[in-house]
């Protein structure tokens, strides 16, 4: 350990206790962000300790990245500087839970699955069906801003986050919002922390609304010969009075993902191959309700599917329902494990532009012989994954050109795209955060207000913030 390294270690050990600081290079490698290792990792136990650590880092001009289960460190640009990993997993307490009021306050490091078990005892849940569900923490889920299939009905964390506590780049513990379900006191600063990759502050505590568990649910699955027909079904459903819980369209080729190991781990039971096979586009939509409502959904969805030209349709329940749900939730990790150079574009467009946007993306990939799969959410968010067979320079150039064209084609009125996941070595070439944004100057003002010296993950966020 260098002298500087020893000083950092001893100060962190003073604050959090020696047993909570890691300096072993092999262990530190597991905290790497884009192959950049920190010189220490510290696991604080309280917001006060975090404030001390941040103050120390700021004084010594060290850069900090808060980490949870470390499942999504690949999102964003490589950090310009990364000295200390702030391992949040010891801040994992349930602060308060009032089932009667359907509100919850938790520390950021609590794993989602643990929280889910606590809520399940009261037949409640959080609609955060996000990738890496079995490992991820609530803090990481919030800071990364990843979405999940339940956003169709419940929206995103932004819609049910009530308040937050966080430590700013000056080591100050602050909060916004509250713990009641309706509140307009002060600025909604907590909204800024969602998807900010921890570049404004370290989230220490999160207050959320909880939701009653759904009564019986089912999934409707329909196969179509073309993307346009599958999107047609999406449009018809959203024009109807049906309020499905989830709504996704899977591209042909997703069936092949089932064959690989990652998919087998996730999918609990097999999904009928007749539906998920060949060159078909698959529309799947979950729905819930009482006996009569379920029957109504089934009848209406079958009718719509037929009118939209479905070649096959089926209603799933039980283990098969769980499998399709897991597929929707864990699509990202599945495709990441399916190629040595998986590059995932997140394309956001108006819902009615999905077919066109996807068609353009497919053209870019296929004209370069790049394998691809896609999952499109009914709300207008498409995950388009390019799955190259290898990660050489020529392939990188192909992916670079394809992704660049896709980013441009999405920037139609109101649309945009980013590349949340790609090989670290490609990040210098690919436009990870998409095209430059006109509102970037307004974001920079916030970064200066929260973290004036750039302590938090410098360089990782939009525009190199």
């Amino acid at each position, binding site marked *: 350990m260098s002298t500087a390294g020893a000083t950092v270690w001893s100060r962190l050990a003073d604050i959090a206790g020696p047993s909570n600081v890691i300096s072993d290079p092999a262990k530190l490698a597991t905290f790497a962000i884009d192959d950049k290792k920190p010189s220490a990792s510290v696991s604080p136990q309280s917001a006060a300790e975090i404030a001390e650590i941040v103050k120390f880092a700021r004084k010594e001009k060290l850069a900090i990245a808060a980490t949870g289960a470390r499942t999504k460190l690949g999102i964003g640009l490589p950090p310009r500087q990364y000295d200390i990993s702030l391992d949040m997993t010891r801040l994992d307490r349930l602060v308060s839970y*009032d*089932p*009667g*009021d*359907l509100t919850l306050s938790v520390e950021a490091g609590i794993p989602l699955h643990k929280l889910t078990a606590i809520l399940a005892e009261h*037949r*409640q849940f959080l609609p955060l069906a996000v990738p890496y569900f079995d490992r991820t923490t609530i803090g990481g889920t919030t800071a990364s*801003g990843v*979405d999940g299939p339940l956003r169709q009905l419940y*929206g995103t964390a*932004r819609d049910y986050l009530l308040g937050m506590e966080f430590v*700013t780049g000056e080591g100050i513990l*602050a*909060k916004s919002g*509250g713990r*009641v*379900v*309706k*509140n*307009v*006191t*002060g*600025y*909604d*600063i907590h*909204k*800024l922390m*969602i*998807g900010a990759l921890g570049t404004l502050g370290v989230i220490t505590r999160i207050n959320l609304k909880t*939701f*009653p568990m759904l009564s019986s649910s089912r999934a409707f699955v329909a196969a179509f010969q073309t993307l346009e027909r599958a999107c047609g079904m999406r*449009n018809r459903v959203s*024009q109807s*009075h049906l*309020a499905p819980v989830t709504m996704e369209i899977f591209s042909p080729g997703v069936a092949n993902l089932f064959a690989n190991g990652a998919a087998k781990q996730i999918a609990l039971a097999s999904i009928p191959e007749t539906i998920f096979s060949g060159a078909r586009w698959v529309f799947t939509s979950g729905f819930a*309700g*009482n006996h*009569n*409502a379920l*029957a*109504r959904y089934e009848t209406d969805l079958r009718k719509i599917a037929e009118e939209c030209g479905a070649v096959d349709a089926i209603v799933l329940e039980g283990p098969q329902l769980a499998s399709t749900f897991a597929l929707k939730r864990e699509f990202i990790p599945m495709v990441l494990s399916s190629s040595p150079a998986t590059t995932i574009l997140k394309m*956001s*467009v*108006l819902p*009615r532009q999905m077919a066109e946007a996807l068609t353009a993306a497919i053209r870019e990939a296929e004209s370069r012989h790049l394998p691809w799969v896609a999952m499109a959410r009914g709300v207008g968010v498409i995950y388009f994954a390019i799955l190259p067979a290898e990660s050489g320079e020529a392939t990188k150039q192909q992916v670079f050109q394809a992704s660049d064209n896709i980013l441009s084609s999405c920037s139609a*009125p109101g649309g*945009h795209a980013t590349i949340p996941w790609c090989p670290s070595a490609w990040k210098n070439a690919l436009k990870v*955060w998409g095209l430059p*944004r*006109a*509102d970037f*100057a*307004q*974001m920079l*003002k*916030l970064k*200066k*207000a*929260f973290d004036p010296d750039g302590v938090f993950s410098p360089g990782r966020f*939009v525009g190199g913030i």
Partner: protein
Amino acid sequence: MAWKSTRRNLQRENMDSHAINDLKKLLGADAVLHRPEELLLYEYDGSVEVARPNCVVFPRHTKDVAGIVQIANRYQIPMIGRGAGTGLSGGALARQGGMLLVFSRMNRILEIDVENQRAVVQPGVVNADLSVAVAHSGLHFAPDPSSQKASTIGGNVSENSGGPHTLAYGVTTNHVYSLEAVLPTGELVRLGSSALDSPGYDVPGLFVGSEGTLALITEITVKLTRLPETVKTLLAIFETVDDATETVVDITARGITPAACEMLDGWTIRAVEAYVHAGFPVDCAAVLLLEVDGLREAAEQHAEDVADVCRLHHAREVRVARDARERDLLWKGRKNAFGAVGRLSPTYYVQDGVIPRTKLPQTLRRINEIGEKYGFEIGNIFHAGDGNLHPIILFDAREEKQFQRAVASADEIIGFCIEMGGSITGEHGVGMEKDRLMPLLFTEHDMNLMRRVRDAYNPTGLLNPGKIFPNTKGCGEIHVRPLPVAGVSRA
């Protein structure tokens, strides 16, 4: 600071005639008011506060707003955005004098995209007008403040307004995709996008509900929500307030989320009936106005479930509106309640505290005790389903002592809400009414960070000065008046 002295002068004197001339040149003479008799109307909003502006301007286009901001900066005039002036916390009042920008002429619906369920509107579009405009497509704009027939979407966005149906549909911020705004520095900005998950910080999420202190919003892209297939409206009648509040607690705990769950106490019902004749029984202690909606099969079941819970808690009767006419009448009673109360007293003071829903029974009992202690009638008509109280304190503002006692009793109610783990405002905003209560919820650190965010966009403090933050002296000179501990009486 130079502008501070200018500001003081403004309050006493007429505005610089050069500034008025510049404004008239930009907007035309009919879009600038500055004579004292013209300004009288604009010293009020829906709150109990009064503050007279030095001039009022009516922009027609975004470029007008940008031009006005330039003039305001040139002459160092405070500027305050205003919609219909229905706000309940003084958000659209010129607390320190200056210029009101009234958006009533920027009232065009610019685009309706039925297929993607979005609309682009100017800030002066009246909330209910948008819903009317899209009704034939089976859509509506879901946030429904009681003021919706007058209040503007720009005002709703600034205050992050709620309403009865926000229980199931969410408040205004849940229905805004993107904004165009003029910053107080004169920059025209577009924030967010009509497609979801705009990369970067959620600046629109910050601006919604910032009470007009960060930017003048000139265009709003909103979500349009499909009208439900079936709506069932129920009126549950109770002999005691406790039975009604216990019902709300139980409905929430059972995981039933009605579209709306409103409570009116007996006193308010009698006031409403004398005015609206909505059909509320005048001999009961409280009613719950409950609505469930959605798919026919689901709504019917939910209506039965809700009615069962009401009966379990000794509801004397549960009526179901038979048709749209009956339903509209019940809602008319609810939405006109404040007007009805206005007939009974020279002045009333509406509070907006929020509590966890499990604490409803003891909170209503406490409000009753506080009323008795101060000798006021306090009515209760509120969004019970999300714990958002609206105690109405009747008093005579002509008597200074009564005014002070009304404020003291309101503070005691708010103190109790905070003790219960609640908040000082659920939907009306802090404005100039509750700024002094901010330290009950937030530390100096919390507020300093918020001030820093304000200063990032509003560096000169010329936009809507004297709002949200306690005793703002401008230019960062802040002195917080010490406040008693929450819940301690100040009578």
